[in-house]
């Protein structure tokens, strides 16, 4: 098929604005899936995705569409729908020429609408604004169209009104898409350059790569090479999803489809990498590749140390499907053997943890999430520290730098005050504050990532009563006045409770952790002294007095059986304790520190 007849596009939207429903309608309308076979939201095939309404794995579907008797092929490239995966989104968009920007007619422009629109603009895409959910009584399409113009700068009159739910306006939308989105360019005669924009592990066939061929063509039996990693593989099959896999003789410049090669493991691929031919390589790779690294780190420990092996197996299995999270063995004096895991963001972390608990039936303790610090030692060396316990001693540190983010928040004007207060408390620096429509305010802040990872989302949600939407991008590292806060139990530092914290907040944070621990550590035979310290300086202290009473008063005949059960219950409680010296610290204590007020 001639490239003039191909349209490559994505649907981008804020969460819950109807992206998946629209994709379903398009699949139905193009006849790719019959309405009868339609499984709700076909593109989201993981339970967890459906449950959270978030698309985690991107897919690409090739669909036939006829306009004025001319046959076209629409390649719909689905994008992940969350801030943690913005790099993957940007690579998916790089495979397209156009994007449908879906905005909920009842909600209006949100932070992710904006972030996604920016990503689309950066990739030079033709953006078609789509106002969705016009069937709802509370829909305000005019107001939303105005916002699209004011906030994003897209002409309001071009916005299309649709209801993905009823199908109203979807046919017109596809016709407009054919008209406005340019066909793919590219040189079929040039050496192969294909953008890898998604990959996943298929237990039967190995790794499936989704690619957009930019130049040249790729065929089975060719040897291909990933330009960033340098790894080479033999192509076994190429084709497209419609939505069932449909093998083709070749994928050519302009086309989107899948490539199965002799790739056995997902981490052998990098999203954004350029595929070329091993024999006849391209001179330069496509632009925009980044080696994405985790930004949020947390320890994962089995509640029952006997589950360590199971946890390792589960992590191995998950990594088959998600090469973007990392894990390495870690030990903690308090929590035993476990792993230090790296994630692309907080949501990513939550998803992985839930999958571990749900799919693998594991009981886990998670330590407080943290970020990767860049430490310059007095000897002039750079040390990357993800785990507070690895921080060099205070005398060896010249400076510590921490990762910053650029946050975008869109909210109702009445929530602006509390949101600014929250951002200031979290050491934020205001970049922009602007009315973008009646009662709608755009706020931009530069914030330390470490201040966001703990509970920023929750706080933002509560101070804005749910009216603020949030998105962020990783920005630069900036030096900060950071110190390590140690928690000591009867003089012994508990590594799993250490945190790196801003000097100004050390006192407050230390007090908060100490009082939480005092609350959750039960009285025991020994007095328990809990201290928070920076270096040698103790900044907070509390005492859990020694236990005075834990006794069975009566122990006759029938009591004995009953009391034994009571003791068994007490014993079960102690099983969930970790020993620090002679002191038993409940696992709850480690979790409680996670919930410590971050302010």
């Amino acid at each position, binding site marked *: 098929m001639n490239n003039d007849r191909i349209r490559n596009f994505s649907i981008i939207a804020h969460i819950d604005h109807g992206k998946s429903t629209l994709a379903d309608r398009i699949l139905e309308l193009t006849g790719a899936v019959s309405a009868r076979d339609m499984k709700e939201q076909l593109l989201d095939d993981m339970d967890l995705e459906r449950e959270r309404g978030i698309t985690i794995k991107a897919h690409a579907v090739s669909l036939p569409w006829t306009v004025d008797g001319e046959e076209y092929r629409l390649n719909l490239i689905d994008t992940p729908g969350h801030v943690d995966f913005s790099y993957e989104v940007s690579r998916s968009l790089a495979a397209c020429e156009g994007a449908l920007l879906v905005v909920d007619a009842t909600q209006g422009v949100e932070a992710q609408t904006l972030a996604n629109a920016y990503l689309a603009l950066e990739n030079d895409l033709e953006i078609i604004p789509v106002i969705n959910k016009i069937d709802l009584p509370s829909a305000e399409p005019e107001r939303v169209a105005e916002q699209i113009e004011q906030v994003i700068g897209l002409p309001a009159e071009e916005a299309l009104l649709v209801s993905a739910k009823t199908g109203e306006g979807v046919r017109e939308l596809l016709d407009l898409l054919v008209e406005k989105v340019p066909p793919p360019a590219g040189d079929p005669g040039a050496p192969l350059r294909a953008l890898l924009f998604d990959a996943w592990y298929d237990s039967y066939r190995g790794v499936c790569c989704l690619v957009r061929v930019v130049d040249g063509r790729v065929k089975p039996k060719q040897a291909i090479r990933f330009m960033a990693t340098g790894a080479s593989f033999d192509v076994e099959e190429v084709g497209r999803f419609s939505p069932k896999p449909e093998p083709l003789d070749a994928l050519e410049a302009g086309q989107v489809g899948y490539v199965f090669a002799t790739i056995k493991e997902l981490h052998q691929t990098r999203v954004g990498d350029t595929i070329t031919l091993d024999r006849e390589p391209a001179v330069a790779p496509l632009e925009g590749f980044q080696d994405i690294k985790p930004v949020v780190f947390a320890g994962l420990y089995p509640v029952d140390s006997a589950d360590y092996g199971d946890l390792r197996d589960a992590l191995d299995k998950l990594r088959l499907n998600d090469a973007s999270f990392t894990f390495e063995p870690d030990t903690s004096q308090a929590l035993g053997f476990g792993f230090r895991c790296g994630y692309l963001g907080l949501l990513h972390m939550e998803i992985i943890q839930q999958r571990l608990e749900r799919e693998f039936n594991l009981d886990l303790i998670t330590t407080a999430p943290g970020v990767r610090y860049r430490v310059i030692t007095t000897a002039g060396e750079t040390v990357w520290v993800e785990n507070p316990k690895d921080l060099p001693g205070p005398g060896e540190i010249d400076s510590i730098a921490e990762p910053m983010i650029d946050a975008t928040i869109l909210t109702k004007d009445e929530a602006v005050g509390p949101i600014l207060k929250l951002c200031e408390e979290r050491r934020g620096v205001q970049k922009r504050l602007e009315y973008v429509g009646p009662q709608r305010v755009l706020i931009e802040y530069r914030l330390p990532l470490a201040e966001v990872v703990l509970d920023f989302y929750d706080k933002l949600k509560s101070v804005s009563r749910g009216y603020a939407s949030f998105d962020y991008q990783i920005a630069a590292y900036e030096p900060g006045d950071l110190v390590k806060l140690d928690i000591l139990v009867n003089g012994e530092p508990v590594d799993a409770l250490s945190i790196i914290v801003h000097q100004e907040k050390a006192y407050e944070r230390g007090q908060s952790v100490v009082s939480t621990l005092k609350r959750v550590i039960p009285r025991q035979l020994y007095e328990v002294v809990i201290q928070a310290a920076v270096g040698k300086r103790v900044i907070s202290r509390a005492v859990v007095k020694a236990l005075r*009473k834990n006794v069975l008063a009566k*122990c006759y005949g029938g009591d004995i*059986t009953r009391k034994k059960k009571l003791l068994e219950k007490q014993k079960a409680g102690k099983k969930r304790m970790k020993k620090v010296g002679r002191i038993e610290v409940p696992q709850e204590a480690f979790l409680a520190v996670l919930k410590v007020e971050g302010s």
Partner: protein
Amino acid sequence: MVTTQTQSMGRYLQALEAELELIDLEPGTALETLYLGGGTPSLLPGLDFQRLVRSITRRFPLATGAEVTAEANPEDVTPERLDAWIEAGVTRISMGVQSFDDAELRALDRRHDRRTACRAAALVRKRSELELNLDLMLGIPGQDRTSLQTSLSVLLDLAPAHVSVYLLEMDKPHRLRALKRRYPERFAGEEDSAGMYLEVHEILTGRGFEHYEVSNFARGGSRARHNLRYWHCRPVHALGVAAHGAEGRRRWANLENIPAYLEAVDERIRPLAWATVLSSRECLAEELLMGLRLEEGVSPARIAEGRSLFPDFSRRLDEFLDLGLAVEKNGRCRLEPRGWLVSNELFVTLV
């Protein structure tokens, strides 16, 4: 043994007599102790009480010098009943007075007051055939050191041979639990309860009582011989609803549901809820747990066995010794009263 409402008492007494023939004890075996209690046998009319004891002793005669204890509510004690009990062979009356403070007794929903309790105790003390035990409770809502001292001095004036002092326990569903949720301030805290317990220890041992078990004090050798059988893991057979028995490594319990119990006995089936045989490890654990609740403590051989079989126990016992909560003397190991107060921290290593 348990009794129930007066209407069904006759039926229940019949069942007890019938169960006598079902229990796993050779007829003719002499009883060293007999305990009528768990419930309120003092409610029984004198003749019924005598008949019940006669039925028991007809099948299992009392050994010479046997201890026969009856539990009694203060309000049930009358000269006539005392006559009947003595005639039936009772040697010891155990009376749950709980407190001599009327406000505290009301908080516990007791039907008696201080006057009734004093009069009942005095009546028992007049009978030279009877030993008297009085139960006191610690941690009653509203109780403080002053009211405890008053109760103790009233108690000491009544000169019982035996005193049981129980710390209020909240592990059973209890009206007090709801009360504690609503008015936590009216309940003694851990610190105060522990303080009161140690104070009782001081006062009673100062008046010649030996504190021979966690909750029990005796004067002049008047220990509760029946209860010692539990603590020394000696055989105990039991009749009635929810009654528990033990012999050797066997443990069993009767049904808790009265109709089910009656039905089983009617059909001449043992009314068992469960029966089990302890492993030798469980037996040792029980022996250690019971033994360490006694002032006499546990023999060196048993402690050594326990240490090797239960490493956590061994470590924790060392901590108890370290903290002076336990002492070792001539190899025998025992807990101090302060150790008894936190003894579950040790016993939890044995389950």
